[in-house]
């Protein structure tokens, strides 16, 4: 078998069989097959990677973008549904807030009134205390006045009625008492 012609130019497509260089079909197909496999291998090895990398990146980017859109949509829908629910329940929330406001205002009111009553009772008590102090002062003044009157009257009567002998007798009694106590 002579493959020299094929080896000289392996990409010749026509059947190179002639009288001088007889080539069988099997030979021709075998060589062509090997050539094809070689070209295919080179294509897969060098050409395909040139496109497959960017394609994969692009595919991933598209998938990520789709995921992000889905995620955003889901999140937004969730928020929208949440606000819908809140709006649906707003009547209840209004009632609750109003009840709370009423309770709060009642507490404040009670506190203010309790404070006012405390101040009021303090004012009244101060008035009563003041009256009590005035009464005590008046009574002390009266007692003092009474004692002064008693002493004044006794002194007046004694000074007018005592004789010289009586004076003498009283002075002696006083001296004796002082001496006894000393």
């Amino acid at each position, binding site marked *: 078998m002579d493959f020299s012609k094929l080896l000289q130019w392996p990409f010749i497509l026509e059947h190179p069989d002639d009288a001088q260089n007889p080539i069988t079909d099997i030979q021709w197909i075998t060589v062509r097959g090997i050539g094809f496999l070689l070209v295919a291998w080179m294509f897969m090895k060098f050409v395909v990677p040139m496109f497959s990398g960017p394609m994969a990146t692009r595919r991933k980017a598209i998938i990520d973008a789709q995921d992000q859109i889905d995620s955003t949509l889901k999140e937004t829908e969730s928020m929208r549904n949440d606000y819908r629910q809140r709006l649906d329940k707003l009547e209840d929330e209004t009632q609750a807030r109003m009840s709370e406001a009423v309770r709060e205002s009642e507490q404040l009111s009670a506190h203010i*009134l309790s404070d006012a009553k405390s101040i009021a009772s303090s004012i009244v008590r101060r008035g009563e205390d003041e009256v009590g102090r005035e009464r005590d002062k008046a009574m002390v003044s009266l007692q003092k*006045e009474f004692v002064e009157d008693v002493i004044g009257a006794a002194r007046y009567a004694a000074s007018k009625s005592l004789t010289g002998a009586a004076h003498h007798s*009283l002075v002696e009694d006083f001296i004796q008492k002082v001496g006894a106590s000393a």
Partner: protein
Amino acid sequence: MKHLEGRKREIAGAYKAVDDTRTEMERLRAEYQERLTKIEAEARGRIQDTVKEAQHQREAIIADARAQAEEIMRDGSSDIEIERIETLTRMRGTLDAVALNALSKSIGSDSTPIHRELVDEYIKTHVARS
């Protein structure tokens, strides 16, 4: 090409769905916030009204207490004056007896009618005038 067009439409639809949902969500949120603000304002208004009313009541209670205290002091002064006069009268009724008793103790002998006259004279001239 057809597949790409379909894909393009699908992506545009997804974006539109997101935008529509977001727009609706924003609208609902704004409505919710507005209504909440109104509710809060109404609640605050109620509280302020109640507090204002309580403050008026407080002022009225304190004013009543002041009036009551003034009345107590006025009545008290009047009562004290009456009590003072009664006590003074009672004391003066016993003044001569107490003075005579003090006198007898100081001079060391029983009091005499002369002493009584002198005490009465003192009371008439000095005590009764005051």
